[in-house]
C-alpha cells in the first residue's frame, strides 16, 4: 500500500494542519516508510483475538461532579491568545 499526495492532503484536512506541496511530499515519504514497517502486523492472524482497550483491570469509577477551583476566570483568560472581557475571541464565524 502506498499513501499518495491526495491522501496526504486529505489527512491534513482531517487533522486541521495546513500542508503545502513541499511538506506533503516529505510527509508522503515518511508515512510510507512508517506504514511499510507497520504492515508487519499483517503476518499475524488475529481473527479470534479480542481487542485490548484498557490494561487497567478496573471499571471506571464514578464520582460527584463538584467545582473545586474558585474565581480563576481571569487566570484562565490570561492564557488565551485573544479575549474580550469574559470571552474568548475567535475569527468571525457567522456572516
Amino acid at each position, binding site marked *: 500500500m502506498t*499513501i499518495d499526495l491526495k*491522501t*496526504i492532503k486529505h*489527512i*491534513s484536512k*482531517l*487533522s*486541521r*494542519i*495546513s*500542508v503545502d506541496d513541499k511538506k506533503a511530499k516529505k*510527509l508522503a515519504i*515518511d*508515512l510510507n*516508510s*512508517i506504514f511499510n*514497517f*507497520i*504492515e*508487519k*502486523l*499483517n*503476518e*499475524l492472524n*488475529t481473527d479470534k*483475538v*479480542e*481487542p*485490548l*482497550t*484498557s*490494561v*487497567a*483491570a*478496573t471499571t*471506571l*469509577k464514578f*464520582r460527584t461532579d463538584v467545582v473545586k*477551583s474558585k474565581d*480563576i476566570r481571569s*487566570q*484562565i483568560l*490570561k*492564557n*488565551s*491568545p*485573544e479575549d474580550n472581557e469574559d470571552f*474568548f475571541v*475567535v*475569527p*468571525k*464565524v457567522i456572516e
Partner: protein
Amino acid sequence: MSEITSLTLTELVKNIKEKKISSEEATKNFIERGEKSKQLNSYITNDFSSALKNAKNFDQKPNFNLKLPGIPIAVKDLFCTSGVKTTAGSKILSNFVPTYESTVTQNIWNEGAILLGKLNCDEFAMGSSNETSFFGNVQSPIDKDLVPGGSSGGSAAALAANLTPITIGTDTGGSIRQPASFTGTVGLKPTYGSCSRYGIVAFASSLDQAGPMSKNVKDCALLHEIISTYDEKDSTSIDFKRNEYSKELTNNIKGKKIGIPKEYRVEGMPKEIEDLWVKGIEYIKDCGAKIFEISLPHTNYALPAYYIVAPAEASSNLARYDGVKYGFRSKGENLIDMYEKTRSEGFGSEVQRRIMIGTYVLSSGYYDAYYLKAQKVRKLIKNDFDEAYKKVDAILTPSTPNSAFKIGEKTNDPVSMYLNDIFTVPINLAGLPAISIPAGLDVKGYPLGLQIIGKAFDEQNILNIAYAMEEKIAFKNKITDWWIK
C-alpha cells in the same frame, strides 16, 4: 562545598535532617551548578529565584518529618505546575501558565520538595533523543556529541550532570528508561494506574505513566512511594495497597524466578550488550535467584502496534490545541484557516507526523485494518507476559538495543529512531512496571542499562532485584564536567 550536588537523594535528606546542610545551602548549590551548565540546555524554564525564597522559608520553619525536607527538585516540563510556565517542549504551549498543579508534582511538594525548574523534553514527549523540542536539543553530560535519549532527555541529563538530586519523567514507550540507560541513571516506569496522570500534558492516554529517575535504586524507591497515590482526578488511577517501597527495600532475592526472553536477542545488537546481559544473569544467580529461559513470541510486533496505538491516541489528545483558549495562535482568514495555520506553525514536524498517522489509522475505512488490528496485537503481547508470569516473578532484558547515539544521527529516518524503543515499548502496551539500571559501559565509555520487568503492581519486587544487582554491578559513570568552563 560543591559535593552537595553529587550526593544521592537519600544522603541529601539525611544531611538536611541532621542539620548539616540547610535547604538554602543545598538549593544555592544546585542553582549555581545549573547556571554553569547552560550549555547542556537541560532547562526550559528555571524557577531559581522562587526556589531560593522557598528554601529560606523552609529553613525558618523546617519540618524534618517530611520525606523530602526542603529538597530542591527539577521536573520534566510535561507536568503542569501552577503559576509556572509549562510548555511540553512545544511552540504551541510556549506561553502557557497552568492554573493547576499535576497530582504527581503536588505529591512531592507536599513532602517538602522545592521546584528548581522545568526540564527539556521532546515535543509532547514524542521522540527518543530530545531533538524534537522547540527549545532545542539537549547535550548529554556523557559526551558533547551525544543525545541524552528521550523523551525525558532534559531530566536524564540534569540528573546525570548533578543539576537536581532526583527527577520525575514520563514514559509512554520508553521515555524514562531509555534516557536513564543512555546517561547511566536509574529510571522506573510504574504500572499503568499507579501514578496519577492528572495535570500531565497528555500524549497517549492508555500508555502514559509518570515515574522517578534517580542516581540509585534506593532513591528511586523513595520517590516512587511519594508519587504513587490513588487519585480520583484520574479515572484510570487504581486504588490498590501501595508499599512503603524504600522501607521495604531488600537485596534478598533468594529463590526469585527470573525469566530471560529469547526474542530480545535481536539481529544486529552489539556484542557488548549481549555480554552485559549475560553478566547480569550471572549477578542474579550470585544473589540466589533462579534463571529460566522464557518466550515472549509477539515481541517483534510490539513496535508496529505501538506506532498505531500511540499516534491514534495522540491525534485525539492533541485536537485540543486550536489556538482558541490557550497557547500559540496564528492569524487566519477565517476560523478553519486559523486552526490549520496555528497547528501547522505551532507543532513541530515529528508531532505533525504522528497526528497525521493517528488521524489516518482512525479515519473511515482504515479503522479496522489498523487501529482494531493493533489493539488485537496488543492483547497478544499482554497474553505473552501473562503466560510468562505463570512461571517467573520478573524478566531481565537489556534496556536498549544500543548505547547513546550521536546528535543528528537518526533525525532523518523516523523508523530507525523508533527502533530505539524496541525493548521498552512492549511493557507500556502491557501496562507493566519496569526499571532500567546502569549496568556497565561500552568500549566508548557510554553507559548501558539493563531492564527488569515486573508483574502489574509488583514494583517492590523489581526494585528489590534492581537493588541486589546494583550492589553487584557497582556501576561508575564517567562524567568529566566538560561543559563547565
